Every structure is written in C-alpha cells, then in structure tokens.
C-alpha cells in the first residue's frame, strides 16, 4: 500500500510504501519520539555528538543540529576519536570535518597516538588481542574523559536498532546479562558525575532506515567498513540476524521491543554501588585499575620485552 500518489522510496516491514516526504517525516518523527519517550534530552543541554563520519553518526548530528538551531538552550558539539586505523578512520574523519565545517559545528578530535602514544594499528602489532576488544576499551575511555573535560551534559551516539539487537543477542550467547543491563537508549548503569550519560536517538531506527535517510539527505559517503570488523563476533551475529529479518520481517523490532520490557529489571538487578577511581589514572573504574590502564601496562611491558 502506498502512502500517497508520489513515487515511493522506502518499504516498511509492514509492507507500507512511503514517498520521500512521508519517509522523512516518519523517520524524524520516530527519532523525536524516541527522545521524548526515553527522556534522552532535557530542556537545557550541552550535547556532545560522537562522530565517526559514518552514516549513523552523521544522521544523529544532522538531526540534533537542527534541533539546536530551533532551541538555543540545546548546544551541540561533535567529538571524534581517531583510533589510527590506516585507510579507514583517516577517510571517515575527512567526511566528519567536511560536514562540521559546512554546518559550522565545533569538532573536537582526540587520537590514540596523542593520548596513549600508539595508534590502534601499532597496538595490534604488539599485542595478540581481538581488535574490537582493545579498540572499544580505549575509545569509550577517551570519549568519556574528553566529554567530561568539555563539560558535555550527554554524549549522543549513532547506535541504531540493528546495533542494539546484535548486542542483545551477543550478550545472550555469552551468558552476560550484566552487559545487557548496560544497554538501552540511555546506556550505562551508574549515575556518577565522572560518567557522561550516553544516549542513542536512533535506538528504534533500523540500519536500512538510517541509510535511506542518509541517502536522501546527502549524508551517505562511499562505502567504508572497518578492516578489523571481519574478526568480530558481531559480524557473524549481524549476518545471521539479517537472514532472519529477510525471512521473518520485523524480527529485529521484536527482539529490541521484548528486550525493552525486561531492561528495567536488568538495570535494577545489576545496579552497581559506588564506582572506584583507577589507581593509575583516576578515571572511574569497576576495579582498582581500569581496563585502559591494564592494556596500556601490557603494551608497555611488551615493548620493553621487544627492546
């Protein structure tokens, strides 16, 4: 069924076909409804948008930038982390810089090389670890630390429904309900001033919807996938989920919607007490020493052994 007499550009999993204006209205309406439903953005904010230069983060920034133009009490800045992944992050950061220049948005870039002394590529030449594990630890560490130093009230990320769905299933398969408790449109478990609240405005938008919106709004750059992604468990889960979605449309929505019903119980069960300060760097940590410092120590010891 078509929405109107205009040519359709997107077919919903329900079978309804939307033209460009109706799809745009549907997509933006869903993002704003998500923001309201989960109370993601208050009346006055100094928001940081975690920008990679990919379609998801550009879409979040595009929509929140418009929100901030309409509401001067909501300030927007972009923050990017340069992990140092040759032929990947250098390209996406160029797109990020171009977008911010064009729209007069302040962009703060922090790199692993400057903050930790090594790029991710160099780290992976030294340590035999899964790239996504070590990369995730350092990226979250820097994003939180720098966002706090920049006085961001919240960090908006480009996580979409597909990302959340994959994480829910991965945590089930790993028997890690505690990790699932940290998911949701408002990520994390602990209300601590040293943690900057992470929010996911695209939480209920599928990756295909985000791509179509990005295409229509000229936000879609040439294809770019992290060269390390092939090693990840997430890719296996993603491909299987896409096969299921093709056979049983609406599967991803069902998984995330049922997850949202149990999420409050998970958050309550895994609610953590006081957060420690890392003995080495002083950043918030569940243990005496944070994961970032543990890996930095491993890197240091490996370099010493090689020398």
């Amino acid at each position, binding site marked *: 069924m078509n929405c109107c007499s205009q040519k359709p550009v997107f077919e919903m999993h329900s079978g309804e076909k939307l033209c460009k204006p109706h799809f745009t209205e549907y997509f933006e309406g869903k993002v704003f409804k998500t923001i309201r439903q989960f109370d993601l953005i208050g009346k006055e904010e100094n928001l940081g948008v975690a920008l990679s230069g990919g379609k998801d983060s550009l879409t979040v920034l595009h929509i929140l930038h418009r929100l901030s133009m309409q509401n001067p009490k909501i300030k927007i800045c972009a923050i990017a982390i340069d992990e140092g992944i040759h032929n990947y992050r250098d390209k996406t950061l160029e797109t990020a810089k171009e977008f911010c220049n064009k729209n007069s948005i302040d962009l703060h870039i922090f790199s692993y090389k400057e903050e930790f002394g090594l790029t991710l590529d160099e780290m992976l030449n030294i340590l035999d670890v899964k790239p*996504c594990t070590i990369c995730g630890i350092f990226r979250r560490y820097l994003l939180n630390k720098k966002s706090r130093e920049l006085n961001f009230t919240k960090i908006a990320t480009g996580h979409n429904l597909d990302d959340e769905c994959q994480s829910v299933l991965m945590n089930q398969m790993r028997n890690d309900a505690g990790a699932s408790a940290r998911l949701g449109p408002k990520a994390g478990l602990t209300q601590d001033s040293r943690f900057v609240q992470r929010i996911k405005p695209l939480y209920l938008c599928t990756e295909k919807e985000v791509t179509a919106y990005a295409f229509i709004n000229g936000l879609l750059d040439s294809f770019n996938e992290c060269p390390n992604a092939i090693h990840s468990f997430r890719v296996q889960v993603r491909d299987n989920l*896409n096969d299921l979605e093709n056979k049983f449309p609406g599967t991803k929505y069902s998984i995330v919607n049922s997850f949202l019903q149990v999420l409050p119980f998970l958050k309550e069960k895994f609610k953590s007490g006081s957060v420690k300060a890392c003995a080495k760097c002083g950043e918030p940590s569940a243990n005496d020493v944070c994961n970032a410092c543990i890996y930095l120590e491993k890197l240091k010891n490996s370099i010493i052994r090689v020398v």
Partner: protein
Amino acid sequence: MDKLKVSVFLDRDNLNKTLQLDDNSIVSDLLKELKINPVTVIVSRNNELILEDEKLKNNDEIKILSVISGG
C-alpha cells in the same frame, strides 16, 4: 524472451557489473541474481531510491548501496 541489459555498481565491493536479465525483471530479481539479501542494501537509479518491485528497463544504471558500515 527478450533480455534487458542492466549496469550495476556495488559500492561494498567497489565493482561495476553488466547483467542480462529477463525482459520483465524487477529489482528483487536483480538482487536474487546477485545473491544479495535485500535487508542489507538500498537500491538507486538516477540518484533516486527504488523499491524491490520496481520494473527494470533496458540500459538502466543501478547502484546497490550497502546499509552495513562502520566497525
């Protein structure tokens, strides 16, 4: 049966292909031919998105854009 000639650009592989398809083929036939899951792509012609039931024309230039990106 007459055949259609369709040029396809696959952004994920950065690859151009030319295919011969049956005269009354639609986008989903093209995706089946290329063994692509429609959930994982959007399809455009002349810089406009087209749906899976869109009829293809002779000498169409189609772009198949992956929705998967990032890390």
